[in-house]
């Protein structure tokens, strides 16, 4: 099989020199679009045994084409009859997309739909990228905050530890908690999932208790939509912390719907000047009322960073993890140079 890796419209790349080696050793042929890895620190010269093409040639010469984001594909017309593997979650209109794909006889796999089971975890790009985003959220907050994180007693006075509130203790939230703790902050977190409490405590942070969360065990790890009352109660409990917080990280997402607004404008108005809010849910509307996707809003000295793509700022590590996810996926769906049957759980989920 002939694999083609596109140069994405962002720093990450879906293949790295080390995964390339693995592909080659499995006997696959690999072509890469020119300068695909340059922004992740992988110049073309570091890829051995791969062919380099312009985009057009690449498409012509490959039957499976991969990218980090589906938006990098451009027009799907160009990919008639090919197999496309990417993260299609950025495509807003799913129905439209499905039609388009059908029309062009494309076989498309959406890596963002990998089920969150233990065994699929090695292909789960959402997990791997969320982990990086969580880390970066704290780093970015630390960069923007006019304070230092750890408590520090010095001859020139004492500095109190920074207070961090994390809303949504999923993969990203947990990683943010861990990173903030490392830097010496006092961390509290909120999440409606029951398991989240134990998980938050397992990182040594505090959990903000709110009664009455709705839980759906069948949702496979995703949070389900919460009742109005719950959201109210949560807002209240969390708000108490928010107005004293120095850094707020929000990651609350609900699969398939707009992210809940957990920080309203009036709460932001009560926050201290200098506070930093990093909203990782911004691509699905954001958890803060004032969030604007991919922008930094300064509201009375409070900085609201709306960014769901922080992982791509960690392009080196992100590309490595992403390309491993891709490799593991390919390795799973292709046996004996053939795509395996579609009654597989994972495939069923991913296929568009």
């Amino acid at each position, binding site marked *: 099989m002939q694999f083609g890796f596109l140069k994405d419209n962002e720093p990450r790349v879906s293949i790295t020199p080390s995964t390339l080696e693995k592909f080659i050793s499995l006997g696959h042929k690999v072509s890469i679009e020119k300068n695909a890895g340059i922004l992740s620190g992988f110049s073309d010269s570091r890829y051995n045994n791969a062919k380099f093409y312009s985009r057009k040639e690449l498409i012509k010469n490959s039957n499976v084409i991969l990218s980090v984001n589906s938006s990098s594909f451009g027009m799907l017309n160009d990919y008639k009859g090919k197999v496309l593997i990417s993260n299609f979650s950025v495509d807003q209109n799913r129905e439209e997309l499905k039609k388009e794909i059908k029309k062009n006889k494309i076989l498309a796999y959406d890596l963002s739909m990998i089920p969150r*089971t*233990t*065994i699929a*975890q*090695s292909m789960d790009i959402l*997990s*791997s990228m969320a*982990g990086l985003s*969580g880390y970066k959220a704290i780093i970015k907050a630390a960069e923007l905050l006019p304070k230092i994180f750890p408590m520090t007693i010095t001859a020139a006075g004492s500095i109190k530890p920074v207070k961090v509130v994390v809303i949504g203790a999923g*993969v990203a939230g*947990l*990683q943010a908690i*861990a990173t903030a*703790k*490392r830097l010496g902050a006092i961390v509290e977190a909120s999440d409606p999932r029951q*398991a989240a409490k*134990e*998980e938050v*405590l*397992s*990182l*040594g942070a505090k959990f903000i208790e709110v009664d009455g969360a709705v839980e759906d065990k069948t949702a496979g790890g995703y949070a389900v939509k919460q009742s109005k009352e719950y959201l109210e109660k949560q807002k209240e409990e969390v708000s108490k912390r928010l107005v004293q917080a120095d850094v707020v990280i929000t990651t609350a997402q609900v699969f398939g719907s707009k992210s809940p607004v957990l920080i309203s404008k009036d709460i932001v108005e009560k926050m201290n000047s200098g506070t930093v809010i990093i909203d990782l849910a911004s691509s699905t509307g954001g958890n803060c009322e004032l969030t604007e996707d991919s922008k930094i809003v300064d509201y009375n000295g409070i900085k609201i960073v709306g960014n769901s793509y922080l992982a791509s700022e960690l392009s080196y590590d992100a590309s490595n993890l992403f390309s491993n996810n891709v490799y593991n996926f390919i390795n799973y769906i292709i046996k004996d140079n053939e795509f395996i049957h579609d009654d597989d759980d994972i495939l069923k989920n991913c296929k568009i």
Partner: protein
Amino acid sequence: MEKFLFLLSAFLLVWGLRLQSDPASASKGNKFAALGMLIAIFSAVIMPLENSKSNLIWIIIPLSVSATLGYIIAKKIEMTSMPQMVSIFNGLGGLSAVLLSFTEINKWIIFPDAYEIIVVVVLLSSLFIGSVAFTGSLLAFAKLDGYKWSEKLTLPFQHIINIVFIFMILVCSYLFISSSDVTYLYLIIFLSFVYGIFFVAPIGGADMPVVISLLNSFTGITAALTGIIFGNIVMLLGGILVGAAGTILTLLMCNAMNRSLLNVIIGGFSSSGPSNENKEQGDIKEISDSDFAVQLFYSNKVIIVPGYGLAVAQAQKLCKEIQESLEANDVEVKYAIHPVAGRMPGHMNVLLAEADVDYSKLIELDQANEEFKSTDVAVIIGANDVVNPDAIDDSSSPLYGMPILKVWESISTVVLKRSMSAGYAGVQNPLFFKKNNKMYFGDAKESLQRLSSELKNL
């Protein structure tokens, strides 16, 4: 001269036993005791006796044959059948006492003036206790060796029957002493033999070590009684020593099993332990604090497999502490990090970094799976799914196909968790039931605390 030798041998026996109560010197202690015994035997052979006859051949032959035999048996026997062996040996010791008492009593029957009544009473006691030790030990052996017929069997009204037996033996003894009629003697022996069987029969196989230890202290007492008869002080002291030590040991063993002695003897084997819950899947074995500590302490290489439970318990610092105290004793310690252990990518890294575990001690899946083969103990702390063999063996498992830490390839494994409940994936773990696995139940923080203080006591 021989008095001095006897004194020396008494000292060696005591000191030997004393040294045996510490792992570091136990082996030396056994040798001391053996030397003491040899000296005692030698002294008994050479000591001047009032009307000594030269029956040396009757001594040399049994001694040398049994010495050789004992050596061969000990060499050949498998490590796992040691307790059985001890049981048989103990039975033989009991038999020996029975034979001796029997001969002496016969002397009395022939020359009623040879002994005072009190001596006969002593002899009869020795006969009784020795007989019980003999048949009891043999039955214990059978139970340990897993003979079907020997399994736990209780007569109805067991206690009453036992009391009746004791009573009958007492009556026969009285009759025998007053009549010197051998029939009664035989009856006593027979009743004692049967009583020995009744004594052990209702007790379950798992409690056998306790029973053997108890019977062993019985044998000690017969030895002491016989010592009185033969006026030999080393026999007396050695017997008493074993009797006392054996009794304490029995109690300690009961303690270690969390049972009372009365419970063992009377109650048979009924209750408790998380061990009974998951019978369908097979048996699990628990490990005690000190066994665990010693096992780690005397290992060359230990691999710790941390999982979500370690994070939940926030026991990472204790884990590091244990690592350090093992390393101080030249045990190589590593951490095998499974990629999905915990609840977020890199959870275990965060955890161990907090405890300041050196990066160089962390090994990844592939390397770990190489290294387990040369590992003495794999210690699984609050991990479950990531060490589940079903991921390899059972295609119907939701974990099937996930790369897994093959901990069971190490010589033995110990799993620390609070209960038998499942991990994230919600499936039971066959590892827990494997033959070389032991469970160490409890919240990881408490468990590791116990382990740590046990290690420091070593």
